Structures are given as structure tokens and as C-alpha cells.
């Protein structure tokens, strides 16, 4: 998904939109991973500021263990303490900031650039036989080395896997 971000930045900027990526990981973790991926978009850490929690993409260990996390305007089971989402804000001339929209889960399909191409191809997304829809996705530098965990939990970090 974020592989498609860099090419969009200049176009968005010319439509009065700034795109920023946020994670709860520390800035040093983010910088190292971003360098490995060769990404340029702005990526900041929300560690300790409650932002991810307030916008329902970070969950407590207890919520994960109980299988009840607040996600996608529902209470659902979730495998890790971090979830994907997109949140949109507007700032007026007076500097006041408003939350206008957030979307999660398949609401993010539209941001998956590869999906938009695959939907035009004969095999489509070709995910019917997979344990979950996005199970085929790897980091762009990991498709060739066959680095997969077990088929039900491919490519999850050890910390995330043990928490689930």
C-alpha cells in the first residue's frame, strides 16, 4: 500500500493535501525500516501520545487477549496491538483542527494501488484460496527470498505473532 505513496505526494500537495504516515513504533525503528524500504514520505511516531488509541488503531494487550478490540466502529477479535487505518483532518484559517473521516479494514482497499490493477486482470486479486485476503502481500524486498512464516501467519513480526 505505502509503496504507492511517494508518487502521489506531489500531486496531493497541489490539491491542498498533505499525506503523512503515523505509527506507534519509535522514530528510530521507523527511520531504519523506512530506509530499508526506500520510502521518502513523511512518517512520524505517535509513541506515548494516545493518537493511535484515540483513532482506534492501537489496542491493549488485554483487549487483544479477550478478542475484543474497538475497530472499524465495532468490537472485533484482532491478532495484534496495531491495526491499519486512515484518518482525515481539516485545519481552518484559525488553526483549529477537525477530524472529518476515518476508515479501516476493507475501507482501505482503495489505497492499495496493486488491487486497482489486479481488479482489471483475468485472475483478479486471486485470494480465494488464501487464509486471509492479503496473505500474499510481502514487503517489496521479500518476494524473492521465499521468507514466509507458516501459511496461516505469513510474515508477521515475532512480537505481533506471539501477542495473538
Amino acid at each position: 500500500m505505502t509503496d504507492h505513496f511517494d508518487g502521489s505526494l506531489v500531486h496531493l500537495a497541489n490539491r491542498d493535501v498533505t499525506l503523512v504516515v503515523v505509527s506507534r513504533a519509535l522514530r528510530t525503528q521507523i527511520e531504519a525500516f523506512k530506509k530499508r524500504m526506500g520510502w521518502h514520505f513523511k512518517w512520524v511516531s505517535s509513541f506515548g501520545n494516545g493518537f493511535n488509541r484515540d483513532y482506534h488503531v492501537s489496542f491493549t494487550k488485554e483487549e487483544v487477549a479477550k478478542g475484543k478490540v474497538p475497530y472499524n466502529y465495532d468490537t472485533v477479535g484482532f491478532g495484534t496491538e496495531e491495526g491499519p487505518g486512515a484518518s482525515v483532518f481539516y485545519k481552518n484559517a484559525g488553526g483549529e483542527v477537525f477530524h472529518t473521516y476515518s476508515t479501516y479494514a476493507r475501507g482501505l482497499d482503495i489505497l492499495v494501488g496493486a488491487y486497482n490493477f489486479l481488479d482489471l486482470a483475468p485472475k483478479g486479486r486471486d485470494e480465494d484460496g488464501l487464509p486471509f485476503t492479503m496473505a500474499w502481500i510481502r514487503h517489496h524486498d521479500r518476494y524473492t527470498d521465499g521468507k514466509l512464516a507458516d501459511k496461516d501467519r505469513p510474515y508477521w513480526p515475532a512480537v505481533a505473532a506471539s501477542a495473538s
Partner: protein
Amino acid sequence: MATQLTSAGIQGHDVVSPNEWIASRKELLRKEKEFTKLRDELSRQRRELPWEKVEKRYVFDGPNGKETLADLFDGKSQLIVYHFMFGPGWDEGVPAARL
């Protein structure tokens, strides 16, 4: 990796004459246009959602040091935040979620 690829929708697929093909394509085009208009309408309704004021002062840590949510707008009036799954202590961000 090959185990992840199937022949879904490929085996035994209909092959037809150009005239039949264009007729089928035009029928799908009718549905595509219907969907496009529905999507435009959905986007319009998304923009019409009410807003909520952000009262908290969030401070982020990034390449420019400490920045507030208001700072992240970087001179624009609209900000899109993508929440990337990457927690403290993880080796790397996660590209896909089991939902």
C-alpha cells in the same frame, strides 16, 4: 510463492466472436458506469459527514523533531494520516493485516 497462485477464472473460460465480445463488454460497461456514479455519490456523502473538533494536543516525533498534529498539515488545509501497523519493539512494519 507459486502455491499462492491459482487458475481462478482461467480454466474453461468462454472464448467468443468479436461481435459477441463487444456485446458482453458493453453490458459490463453499463454496470461500470452505474458503479462510478454510485461511487461519486458515496464520496459526496463522505464529504458531507459532520466534523469533530480535535481538542487534544498530540505531539509526534519525526524527522523534524517534535511536531503537533496541526504542524503535520505542512501549510495545507487537508491532512490524510495513514496508520501503518508498526508497534514499539517490532522488527518491521506489517504490510498486510488479517481482518
